[in-house]
Every structure is written in structure tokens, then in C-alpha cells.
């Protein structure tokens, strides 16, 4: 009797754990899309602050092209799996997070840009260096979270 109750409780706990894992994995996928959107918005915002108008226009054009590519990718099953289907999760916290991420990245990109411009004056394109640093940090955070999700699932 005790053994059967333990089995039932363990089975129910396994159902809860599996559901929470699915939900968290979906949130992770959705967050990737949020990050990509935030990066595009941040790049567009920082492009407006660039002193070089030609370069600013180029960055804005790149953002628009990347945004369009993302919209096309979301229509394919593979793209939807990587970036998340639109509207699967309507987490209010995620929308707030998206806004905060846009603002934080919008503020961070010009700051990193200035720092790298000061540090590497005359050596290559500081905007590229700043972009690589910000993008690298985002990818590292994404990978770390993915690893944590996999560890939780194991």
C-alpha cells in the first residue's frame, strides 16, 4: 500500500517536472526571439546616435533586413523551432523584460562603443568591436541558460 502510494506520488511529481521543463524550454525559445528583437531595436537606436550618418544609415538598413529575415524565418518550421512561434507564450513578465532589454541594450551599445573607441583609437572599427562584445555576451548568456535547462532536464 505504502509502496503504491509512493509510486503514485513519484509519478505525479514526474508529470509536474516534465510539464515545467516543457514550459521553461518554450520560454527559453521565446526569449531568444525577444533577444533578437531587442538587439535589432538597440542597434537601430544606437545607429541614430552615430556621428557618421552614412554608417548610421547602413546599420539601420541592416537592422531592417535582419528584421525581415527573422519574419521570414518564423514562417518556416525550423525557424519557428529556433526562435519560437509568435504568440505561443504571452508572458507579461517577458514583455516587460523585452522593454527593459531594449532600453538596457540601447544604452549599453553606445557606451561600449565609446569605451572601445577610446581604447582602440585608430585600430579598426570600434562599432564592430562593440557589436561583437555585446553579441558575444548575449550568446554566452543564452548558452549558459541552455546548459542549465539541459542540466535540469537530466
Amino acid at each position: 500500500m505504502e509502496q503504491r502510494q509512493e509510486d503514485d506520488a513519484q509519478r505525479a511529481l514526474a508529470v509536474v517536472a516534465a510539464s515545467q521543463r516543457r514550459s521553461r524550454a518554450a520560454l527559453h525559445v521565446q526569449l531568444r526571439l525577444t533577444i533578437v528583437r531587442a538587439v535589432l531595436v538597440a542597434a537601430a537606436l544606437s545607429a541614430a546616435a552615430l556621428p557618421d550618418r552614412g554608417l548610421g544609415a547602413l546599420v539601420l538598413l541592416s537592422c531592417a533586413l535582419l528584421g525581415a529575415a527573422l519574419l521570414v524565418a518564423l514562417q518556416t518550421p525550423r525557424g519557428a523551432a529556433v526562435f519560437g512561434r509568435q504568440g505561443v507564450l504571452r508572458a507579461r513578465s517577458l514583455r516587460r523584460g523585452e522593454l527593459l532589454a531594449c532600453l538596457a541594450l540601447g544604452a549599453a551599445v553606445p557606451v561600449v562603443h565609446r569605451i572601445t573607441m577610446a581604447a582602440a583609437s585608430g585600430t579598426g572599427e570600434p562599432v564592430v568591436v562593440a557589436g561583437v562584445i555585446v553579441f558575444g555576451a548575449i550568446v554566452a548568456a543564452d548558452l549558459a541558460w541552455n546548459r542549465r535547462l539541459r542540466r535540469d532536464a537530466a
Partner: protein
Amino acid sequence: MSLVGRDDDLQPLLLDPTRLAITALLGSATWLEFPFVRDAVGTSDSALSKQAALLERAGLLTTRKGYIGKRPRTWLQLTSTGRAMLSAHVEALRRIAERAAATPLRSPREPTPSQPETLDKFAH
């Protein structure tokens, strides 16, 4: 399930695996789209509708209908009562599992104190 009456915090409504899966899924998010819940739980539209309506009547869940473009959509959300009930239920399940794990299991051959030793001879 044989868990009925085992713990006061166990919610009878959540003893059903499908309803438990739905609430656990919603417990980790704010709003979830109906097809996502259906696919994750592995059930049909009608079965999910039935279970969602049951949970909504009990005050554990709330639904919202809307449109994305021209396509009608339904979203599900766990209410604060639902969240509280789910965490109480999960805690109760953990307690049962821990209590059972703490109780030493007797081997089938080992005689219990109430069991006469002579019976053991005839058991083989």
C-alpha cells in the same frame, strides 16, 4: 489514484494526471496559448476544453479569447488560487514520497512481528 486521503493539502481536482500536467505547465508561465498546452500535454482539443472548463469552474484557471491578425486564439492562465493550490499539491506529493522513502521496506521473505514464524516455512 491511491493518494486520496493521504494528505490534507492534496487537491482532489489535481489527482488527475492531465489536469495536473495542465496546471504545472501553466504554473511556469503567465499566459499559454491553447494549441501549445494541447501539444505539450498530448491531448485533443475537446479533451483540453473539457478539462480547462472544469478547472475554470473551480477557479484555478482563467481563459482569454482574442485574435492574432484574423485568427482567433485562446490563452490560458493559472489564477493566484490555482498557483497556491498547485504548490500545496506538489508539496503534499513531495511529503508523501519522502515519508514513503523514509519508511524502511521489508523484504517479502522477512517475517513481520505479527507473522508467525511457522508460516515462513510453508512459504517456499
